[in-house]
């Protein structure tokens, strides 16, 4: 059975990528899962410089989901290539580096540095982080902003460029289009939904940052719809995510139009899930006689059944 999928020039052994910010720098999980068996590892969002991030509390659980406002704490791209990349390379991980900037130049500078180093498979442009004041989502919520960042980074690197789209917009498909026109090799979606929770006894926000990003199973149906919309808008490979916790969830995203997927929050609940999800994909392929998993992408059947005749 063939579980491999292709993102432009990149071929992944399977569609399962660890989602950025939910898998540390990958090395934290190396004794729990063999990183080379994953479709890829998207490391925590990196700025040029180190960042302390927001003061705790940084997360709060909500029904079938969680809010986070980490504030992109990170070691910066320089320390990353020095301290983390070598081990990731040794462990033969397919590394997606998630990068974030407050200016277009910062995105480009980070992309340049990463391009000079062995072991980076692709650059995921985080233009959708809801938790920082400038940069990130301010690009992701504007079509021109999205176009500017993507085309600028496109010019400075030959690595696959994958802008990560925010779901906090009216028409996500138009952002996929803007990314395609700007030369993106793929798009990934969704990042988290801007949300908040309040402690009714103190009347204070439960997160120090007041608002945070909602992730987890709760958002899956919205994310699937957005992947489905993007699939109809662009030919680009789509990396789908949002609440994926098992093989059926992976299949749902692929059938809706995703070429690969990322798993974030569910990895917190069960860091050993990668093996079980892969087993589930094998079982599904056997049961339905599917030789190439990639054939599932966009295979949704929307022809109406007879039962639908009266619908308005």
């Amino acid at each position, binding site marked *: 059975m063939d579980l491999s999928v292709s993102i432009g020039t990149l071929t992944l052994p399977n569609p399962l990528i660890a989602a950025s*910010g*939910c*898998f*540390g720098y990958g090395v*934290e*999980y190396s*004794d*729990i899962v063999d990183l080379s068996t994953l479709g890829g590892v998207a490391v*925590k969002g990196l700025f040029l410089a180190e960042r*302390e*991030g927001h*003061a*705790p*509390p*940084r*997360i*709060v*659980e909500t*029904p*079938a*989901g*969680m809010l*986070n406002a*980490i504030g992109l*704490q990170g070691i910066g791209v320089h320390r990353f290539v020095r301290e983390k990349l070598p081990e990731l390379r040794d462990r033969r991980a397919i590394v997606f580096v998630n990068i974030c900037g407050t200016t277009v130049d910062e995105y480009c500078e980070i992309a340049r540095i990463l391009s000079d180093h062995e072991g980076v498979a692709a650059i995921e442009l985080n233009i959708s982080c809801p938790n920082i004041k400038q940069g990130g989502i301010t690009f992701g919520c504007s079509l021109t902003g999205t176009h500017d960042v993507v085309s600028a980074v496109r010019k400075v690197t030959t690595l696959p460029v994958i802008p990560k789209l925010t779901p906090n917009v009216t028409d996500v498909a138009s952002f996929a289009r803007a990314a395609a026109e700007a030369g993106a090799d793929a798009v990934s979606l969704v990042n988290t939904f801007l949300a908040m929770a309040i402690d009714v006894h103190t009347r204070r926000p439960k997160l*120090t940052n007041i608002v945070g990003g909602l992730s*987890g*199973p*709760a958002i899956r149906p919205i994310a699937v719809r957005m992947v489905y919309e993007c699939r109809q808008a662009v030919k680009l490979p789509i990396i789908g995510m949002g609440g994926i*916790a098992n093989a059926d969830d992976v299949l749902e995203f692929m059938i809706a139009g995703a070429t690969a997927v990322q798993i974030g*929050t569910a*990895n*917190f*609940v*069960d*860091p*050993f899930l990668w093996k079980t999800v892969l087993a589930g994909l094998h079982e599904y392929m056997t049961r339905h006689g599917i030789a190439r998993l990639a054939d599932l992408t966009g295979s949704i059947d929307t022809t109406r059944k007879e039962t639908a005749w009266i619908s308005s």
Partner: protein
Amino acid sequence: MPVDVDAAVISNTRLSDDYSVIALAAPELASLARPGQFVMVKASRGADPLLRRPFSIFEILRDRTGGPIGITLLNKRIGVGTARLYEAESGARVACLGPLGRPFEPVAPPTEAWMVAGGVGLAPFMTLAEAIRAGGGHARLFYGARRAAELYYVELFERMGVDVVLTTEDGSRGRKGYVTDALGPALAALSAPSEVRLYVCGPTPMMRAVADLAALHHAPCDVSLEQVMGCGLGGCYSCVVLARDSEGAPHFVRSCIEGPVFEASRIVWHALAH
């Protein structure tokens, strides 16, 4: 390397309306566990509640031959996850990931181990006391609670040869007041602070007060912090505490992998969420 076991509940003894001790069949976990380590636990199916919750490994259960067969957790109900654990009946399954975190380093004799516990902060000290006593060291437990009824397992510690000092806020058992009211004089009475090492777990204000006392008396002090934790493995950066590095510069560090045990002097206390 941690293991994830779908552990069967052997028993769940309710100590009060909010405290229970839950025994889990988990031989591998029990054999790997070191003093003060924790496990990430999920006692319910489905996505609500979603995340696991961190719990100190309270006791190591052993069979007649002394072989480890499981662990217990000392659970205080404060919300939905701890409520599910409180309600778990024997036979039920509890997902249990661990052991995790930086353990306590038991001191060697002649240095004495002084454990300071507030409320459910007692949890990490059973395993530490065992290790200290096994090494032939002298262990004291300063243990404070609101009232007598909330002091648990005192006799068990005493049977282990731990010298227990109790305080209650209402004076219903032991000395009236906070645990620090008993600890302060004891520290002052020392001829040399190097004779002891403090190990602390409890509410943040209490840990901070003990850390201040330790600093005052130049006594080495380790605290076990309890931050909200999303993953327990260093993946999410939710559990950070502001701690000083070797140059004394404060940074947010992940308490799940650099901790939960920290040298008290590293912690920037006023930045701790409480």
